[in-house]
């Protein structure tokens, strides 16, 4: 028997099992995290059923059932396994103070899912769960009762949403344009003053123009007020499950649903509508509700500008290192330096970007080209251009390494063949090597984009904000506003998850953002892997 034990120990099976468990643990970690994000993120869009519970003391609770758990430290003789409790999202933050509520299971007398319960998504104070008592226009009651009110409300909500759109258009486009022009004139006047021409007729003209703009502005503000009054025209009295009332202007309601009365098809349809609205809408309530469109837009813009900056430099450097430079000690040192750069923490790039791009370069640009706006910085503060450049520096090693890989995979015969046929070195680079190395360059670019999409730390120093007043791209000349601050998916996660006052209510939003970010990044990485495999196969086949 001891012999057998010795044999077993010598075989190393035990150690192999530990190794195997380590692999299993790593796999489970990846799978678990992905699953966690998927469940929480994808569940967000589903119109959850509403549960109405009557408790043993006669009070009632209405809301979405979120989870159930064993109450810690609750073993009692009657409940040897420990009592359980359920967590409900009861909404009605303005009435209850909190969005979530724990209910002990043994206190629940009865529970059902009433078909007439309505879930309202509101512009303020989060969701409201309850029923409709009456709908009125000013003092006149239009409809009473839940069913009648529900029917009367549907067209009103549609109208209110149209009104909101109109108001937004007026605020953002019309009034925004006027403000933009007023600011432009102000800067022009200041510029003339700086050149000592404050008494010229041009200034008087500009001042007159400002006056005119201001009067136009006031006129539009009047229209805006009128529209806002229209929003308050209709109001609705809502009643929560215990009978407390809440009067609400219809303009406050984004949408009203009866999730318990919806068929599966309707729910699936609603799921995709919700999904689309998160992707396409502006955020509300300090980013914790509404959509994430500006964050997606900002991320994409930043990555695009970064790509434009990083590809030429990365490819040039790789071509130089692989095709032009004499291979020797210097090139080896440079390769190590490039590798090192890839290992430098991203926050260090942020520090560099802030010091060099923002303060040194941006400050100089401001002094030279925008003296009229000082002391308000134009380029001398964080902005999308500086953030993109910083990330370009961060990702240039990725492009260099990947392009070099692509170049080294191109068989030597291609070069020799091309040169032998009389092409110059540059011509063979351009016509033969570059097309063959294109998948490598593309892989590098995709990996760089994937890295840049997920990177947050350097952006925090170089121009990302929690709420940007304007997108970096609009219809004002020169259309692309490189100096503007922008929103970013990753920073959105950090900000909403850690800086918002009501973290618990904000969590679903963070999971949604996380899901989108992770999907984008992993999708990019997988496509890079696929491209690399394609490249390897192609040259393996042709080299034979």
């Amino acid at each position, binding site marked *: 028997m001891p012999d057998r034990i010795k044999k*077993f120990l010598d075989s*190393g*099976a*035990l*150690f*192999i099992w*530990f*190794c*195997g468990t*380590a*692999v*299993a*643990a*790593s*796999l489970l*970690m990846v799978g678990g*995290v992905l699953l*966690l*994000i998927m469940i929480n993120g994808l569940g967000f869009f589903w119109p959850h059923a509403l549960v109405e519970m009557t408790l043993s003391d006669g009070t009632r609770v209405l809301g979405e059932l979120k989870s159930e758990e064993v109450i*810690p430290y609750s073993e009692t003789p009657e409940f040897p396994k420990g009592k359980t409790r359920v967590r409900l999202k009861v909404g009605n933050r303005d009435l209850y103070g909190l969005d979530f509520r724990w209910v002990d299971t043994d206190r629940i007398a009865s529970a059902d899912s009433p078909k007439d319960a309505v879930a309202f998504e509101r512009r303020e104070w989060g969701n409201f769960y309850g029923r409709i008592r009456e709908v009125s226009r000013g003092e006149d009651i239009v409809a009473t009762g839940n069913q009648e009110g529900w029917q009367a409300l549907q067209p009103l909500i549609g109208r209110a949403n149209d009104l909101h759109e109109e108001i937004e258009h007026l605020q953002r486009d019309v009034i925004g344009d006027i403000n933009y022009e007023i600011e432009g004139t102000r800067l022009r006047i200041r510029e003339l003053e700086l050149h000592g021409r404050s008494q010229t007729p041009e200034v008087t003209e500009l001042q007159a123009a400002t006056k005119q703009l201001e009067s136009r502005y006031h006129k539009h503000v009047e229209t805006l007020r009128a529209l806002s009054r229209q929003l308050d025209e209709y109001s609705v009295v809502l009643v929560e499950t215990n009978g407390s009332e809440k009067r609400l202007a219809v303009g406050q309601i984004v949408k009203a649903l009866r999730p318990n009365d919806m068929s599966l098809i309707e729910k699936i349809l609603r799921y995709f509508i919700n999904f689309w609205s998160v992707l396409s809408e502006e955020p509300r309530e300090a980013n914790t509700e509404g959509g994430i469109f500006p964050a997606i837009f900002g991320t994409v813009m930043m990555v695009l500008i970064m790509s434009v900056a990083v590809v030429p430099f990365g490819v*040039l450097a790789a*071509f*130089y290192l692989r095709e*032009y430079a004499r291979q020797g000690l210097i090139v080896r040192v*440079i390769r*190590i*330096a490039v*590798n*090192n*750069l890839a*290992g*430098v*923490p*991203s*926050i*260090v790039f942020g520090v560099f970007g802030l*010091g060099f791009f923002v*303060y040194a370069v941006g400050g100089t640009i401001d002094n030279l080209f925008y003296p009229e706006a000082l002391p308000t910085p134009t380029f001398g503060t964080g902005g999308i251009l500086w953030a993109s450049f910083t990330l370009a*520096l961060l990702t*240039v090693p990725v492009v260099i390494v990947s392009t070099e890989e692509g170049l080294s995979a191109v068989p030597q015969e291609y070069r020799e063949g091309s040169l032998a046929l009389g092409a*110059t*070195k*540059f011509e063979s*680079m351009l016509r033969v090597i570059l097309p063959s190395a294109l998948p490598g360059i593309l892989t590098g670019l995709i990996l760089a984009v994937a890295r840049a999409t*997920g990177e*947050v730390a350097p952006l925090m*120093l170089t121009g990302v904000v929690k709420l940007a007043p304007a997108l970096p791209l609009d219809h004002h000349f020169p259309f692309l506003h490189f100096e503007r601050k922008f929103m970013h998916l*990753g920073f959105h*996660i950090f900000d909403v*998850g*850690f800086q918002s006052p009501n973290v618990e209510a904000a969590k679903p939003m*963070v999971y949604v953002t*996380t899901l989108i*970010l*992770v999907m984008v*990044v*992993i999708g*990019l990485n997988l496509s890079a*892997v696929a491209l690399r495999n394609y490249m390897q196969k192609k040259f393996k086949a*042709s080299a034979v």
Partner: protein
Amino acid sequence: MNQADLSANQIETASPPAPVSRVSSRAWRRWVDSSARVVITFGGWATIVSIFGIFAYLFIEVAPLFDAASWTESASVHVAPVDAAEPETIAVGIDEYMEVGYVLRKSDIAFYALPAGTPVPLDPSVLSGAERSRRMPDFEDGEIAALARSPGKTHTYGLGTKTGRVIPFYVSFRVTFDDDVRNVEPVVSSGEPFEAVPTPVGPEPFDYAQDRHSGAKSKDAHIARLAYRETDSGPIAAALTGSGRLFLTKMQESEAGGLFALETETELLQVEVIDEGVAALSVLLLDDLGETLLGGTKDGRLLYWDIQDIRNPRLMGMYSAGTAITALSYLIGDRSIVVGTERGTVSVWMPVIDPDVGGDPRLQKIRDFASHDGAVTAISPSLRDKGFLTTGASGGVAVHHSTSGQTLIQIPGNGAAIRAAMFAPKTDGAVVLDDSGRLIAYDIENEHPESTFSSLFFPVLYEGYEEPHHIWQSTGGSDAFEPKFGLWPIMFGTVKGTIYAMLLATPLAVLGAIYTAMFMRPNIRAVVKPVVETMAAFPTVVLGFLAGLWFAPLLEQIFPAVVAMFLLLPLAVALVCIGWQFLPSRLKGQSGNVTELVAFVLVLVGTVWFCLQLNHQIETWLFDSDYKGWLQSSFGLAYDQRNALVIAFAMGMAVIPTIFSISEDSLSNVPPHLIAGSLALGATPWQTLTKLVIISASPGVFSALMIGLGRVVGETMIVLMATGNTPVMDMNLFNGFRTLSANIAVEMPEAPHGGTLYRLLFLAGLLLFVFTSIVNTLAEIVRQRLRARYSQF
């Protein structure tokens, strides 16, 4: 190339050549080729130079931290010489832009435009009628006998007269802009005078009940030394008469009247201080709250009174400073005291309260600074930091900084004793008056006085502490806050986070790599490896969010189960492994196949599930039903929700794929014929692994660990989101910490451009840069050598 490719090429070449190619002559093509070479070489080098440029730029931003301070004499103006009896009545000052300096002597003040030295007249038009009459103090009975400066943003003086009165006197500068040209105008005004010495002064201790407000003023009321301070509750003065009597006077302002008629009423509180050593006093000093009085004597003693109850001053202590004390001053914040003596020594003292005994604070000398050749004649504190300026009887001027303990500048002077001095409000200059009657202004370049190598990396005795500490606390509520720039706590936090994360990640990643490279079927490996590598693509902000908002609260609930997992898992694996040996191989299949992998997963999931089910029982058995209390009582460890254990898991996850991938590469790149040879000679796979593969691939594993280490050290978002970011220094696994990288992310947005904090954060960045560069270079060199060695086979 195959046949189809060839024919395709032939078709292409067969098409008629484009006209362009005919035009492009050989010379043109050569030109294009050589210019392309230049462009590519230039572009390549530009990229490479910019990589090195990052290092250079970080260095450039950090370097000024350690720059020596420098000075230049910017102006020298001749005013009337100073006579020996006069020093007590002279003061100099300068505005914050260093454009106008002044000399206040006797009952006269003169302003000079600097650096030209032309007199600046006081423009009466800048004052309205009523103010104009009060512009200069009204000296009805003689000139100033003593003068005291009350430090602060405005130039506030108490002028003590020969008749025992104190006249508050203010100098300020009105700054106007006319067409972007700055214009600095001096403005002076004076306050309500009050009697700081009761008259007449009799031979016996003053009896306030009897003697007040009776009789004429006497010669004995002559104020020889004065301390004056304007506190929130009214001005306060300590006056030493020519005959050596010390009187303390406070103009107490109290709100009187009904609810609707708020009026302030002033009440004059006065007392004579009778203690041993009073007669020998040479300098007096009051703090800004009016709670303590300090006196320096001619025989070198420092007297320390508690005057919170102004009617009842109490001597708290008497300390020896060696030789006669000639100058005293508080530093900004009125905590540290600078003492200058006749021998020219300069030292900083601090009140310390013994925490065990409590009671009165005790003065303690904490630092000595470079001495002057002659007696110290004046001390002027900075209004911005814990720096100060001292001058000597031999004409020397020196700038010191208390926290860093260094003397930054020593200006030798020309031998004429300096009588009065002021550190410029922005600490970028100084103005002094010497005995020969020269008013000299200096420009001082002194951007970062608080940072020295030792103040950054060694413990420092900060104000309000008993002994030297490593502390990082960069900003406080007010100007008087002493910034604490000890880098150790955050470097310690970086090390702590790194160690715990690597402790978790290393075994998982390396063992996993060994299994994947050595024992797994290639077709499974083709799936498993990319899946683990996907983990590397997870944005760290996502891991940080999950760690902070999902895992940290979860871990707090299931902590006992997690402890049990660490204990039970190896046991479970061992047991199942032994059981596995007895399974018929028909069921097991080949080693390294999917069945085995599923078995691993099942063991893992089963153990985890088992532990979670028993969470409460485990807590009862192992931790007395309350693991937090148990940790506290057994080991004195506090448990925070966001702690190093959470970080270990999250950062471990971020770094496992890196280590795994590189280790796996180096393990599976061990030349196959070596392995085949080993197996052919009869070694078991296990022997081949331990005796051959691991040893020959160990440099690769090492470099994988180094690269992983580099990643963990600089990781920002995870630590930012999942620790409390408190810069504490202990290795407790269950509390938070702050790392260099998180510190940059937290403080950089608030750091003013070019300030000390800004540059220190650059230093933190540089440290990270240098450390990761060293680690990565090491890893890269090891890898290159390994590759060269494998290619020999």
